[in-house]
């Protein structure tokens, strides 16, 4: 069983996040890490591999990422958690790609890898569009079981539970398939120190667009359907409003506040 898990290297949300002059995210001047939402995808991939055990033949989890040189850190973290090998698609022409262009590069990379199951997180923690898994399944011509909060694999049948606002549905797909998992699917493990040491020896390949047969004109900011027009820094936090209940008017003041902010 070959599992390909797609992960993204994102700016550390606890640090200062910046944009380049073309309004794309500055990915080189800031500390980055494996997107936390993708850690769930890695976790589910590893759990599937562990459940298959030796009965599933030689299961292998390959981590796939697209990004600048530093993005290899995201691969390394996944390898430390227990994935087997990594593929890093790195090409300057990719910078500024939107979800559509990104899904093209991912799809072409997945095609070059043996894959029974392609696993993604539910969204990135920077762009946050959450559409890449669906686009990927379309481009690969594979069934897409997205937004799974619990995942089961029975032979060639993938079964997930998707919790919606109004209903919970069960989605089944036959492998090969694309799966995306939510942050409800189970906490991601910490790497162990042995995992850190073992990751040193795991192979990571670097591919360019040429390796994938993708024309540079199909990706990047110019080829993207969507682009960020403008960014504004978040306004500084204000002191807030203190409601005092000296004359019994406190409850009404609270209700008025909640109504004015459209909370009720």
């Amino acid at each position, binding site marked *: 069983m070959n599992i390909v898990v797609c992960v993204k290297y994102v700016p550390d949300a606890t640090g200062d996040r910046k944009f380049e002059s073309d309004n794309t995210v500055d990915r080189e001047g800031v500390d980055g890490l494996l997107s936390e939402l993708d850690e769930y995808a890695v976790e589910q991939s590893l759990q599937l591999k562990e459940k298959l055990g030796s009965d599933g033949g030689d299961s292998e989890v390959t981590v796939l990422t697209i990004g600048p040189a530093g993005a290899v850190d995201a691969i*390394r973290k996944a390898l*430390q958690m227990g994935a087997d090998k990594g593929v890093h698609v790195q090409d300057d022409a990719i910078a500024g790609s939107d979800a559509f262009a990104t899904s093209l590069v991912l799809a072409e990379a997945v095609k070059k890898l043996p894959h029974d199951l392609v696993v993604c997180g539910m969204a990135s923690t920077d762009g946050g569009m959450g559409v890449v898994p669906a686009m990927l399944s379309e481009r690969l011509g594979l069934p897409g079981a997205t937004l799974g909060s619990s995942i089961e694999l029975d032979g060639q049948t993938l079964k997930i539970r998707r919790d919606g606002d109004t209903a919970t549905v069960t989605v089944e797909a036959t492998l090969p398939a694309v799966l995306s998992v939510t942050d409800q699917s189970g906490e991601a493990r*910490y*790497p*162990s*120190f*042995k995992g*850190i*040491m073992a990751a*040193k020896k795991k192979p990571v390949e670097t591919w360019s667009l040429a390796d994938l047969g993708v024309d540079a004109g199909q990706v990047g900011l110019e080829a993207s359907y969507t682009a960020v027009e403008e960014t504004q820094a978040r306004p500084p936090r204000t002191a807030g409003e203190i409601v005092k209940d000296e004359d019994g008017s406190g409850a009404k003041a609270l209700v008025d506040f909640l109504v004015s902010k459209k909370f009720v």
Partner: protein
Amino acid sequence: MPARRLMPTPEAADLLQLVRDVSAKELLPAAADAEATERFPRESFRTLGRMGLLGLPYPEKVGGGEQPYEVYLQVLEELGSVWASVGVGVSVHALSCFALFTAGTEEQRQRWLPEMLGGELLGAYCLSEPHAGSDPAAMRTRAERDGDGYVLTGAKAWTTHGGQADFYTVMARTGDERGAISCFLVPADAEGLSSDAPERKMGLTGSSTTTMRFDGVRVGVDRRIGAEGQGLRLALAALDSGRLGIAAVATGLAQAALDHAVAYAKDRETFGRRIIDHQGLAFVLADMEAAVQSARATYLAAARLRDRGLPFATEASVAKLVCTDNAMKVTTDAVQVLGGYGYTRDFPVERFMREAKVMQIFEGTNQIQRMVIGRALDKGTSARIEADPA
């Protein structure tokens, strides 16, 4: 801000990042409550153990992480900066494995070390007695030879993890001469072994400290570590390394106090300015930063000697003295920076101050450290200029 660190390898850097992550997500949220309610965080030690963090300074072939002290101590410092009781606990655990690793037979090591270092078992170290702390050779706990075993009788004071540990590394008298002391590895479920109620301490209240009672505890000869009479030497050698652990934890504690003080000083305003903009306050913070950085440099200097197999006992005493005295100073100053708020239990700095105090006392009081350093000066310290053998 956590400390800036220069690690010797990429793996060590990843290890420190991992420790920071697990500290922020698992330890920090639980620390204040566990300390306030005096609850021993056994599960936290399991989490760290499963991640391979309880055996870092020991070789891989016996289940350790094979990391130099330079790296291991910085892990302890990071742990100490979020939860001193856990940092001290990890250091004590490493201390309790030292005798078996150093003097155990190959069979003993293979039998017990992998589990001890693998993280499932937690260790404790029994040296001090109610009347014999700084002078351990005055101990009275006896191990009488009885057929193919020994019978241990006596009491051991100030046992970190007492009543919680899975095994106890115990020094006991096997003869009447002052130095006739041997080392034993006693399992927690040994018949006749019991623990008093935990001491009601000023700080490190999440960590259990008890007197352990040995009422005719029988152990086989195979649980004696090293030769008869070797125990005190082993115990003191373990303490040289243990002192470095305490130095590192104290430095982490000081860093945490500094971080809180700086954050507060950047936020709190008096006379229309942030208090960090008042020079009188900024200089206090600057001295705290200098104290933390010099503490770190001091324990790392000792660690690097140890890692290269060079004598380091005096430097370990200097590190223990400097790091814990600095931690006392920095945590006290942090309370001062926070003013009245610092004195309340709504902010953690008063707890840090209480925790710092014991670090000047345990694993050799700072007066004992000065005695060790004074003796070394009397003998003549090394003036050798050496090339790094590494």
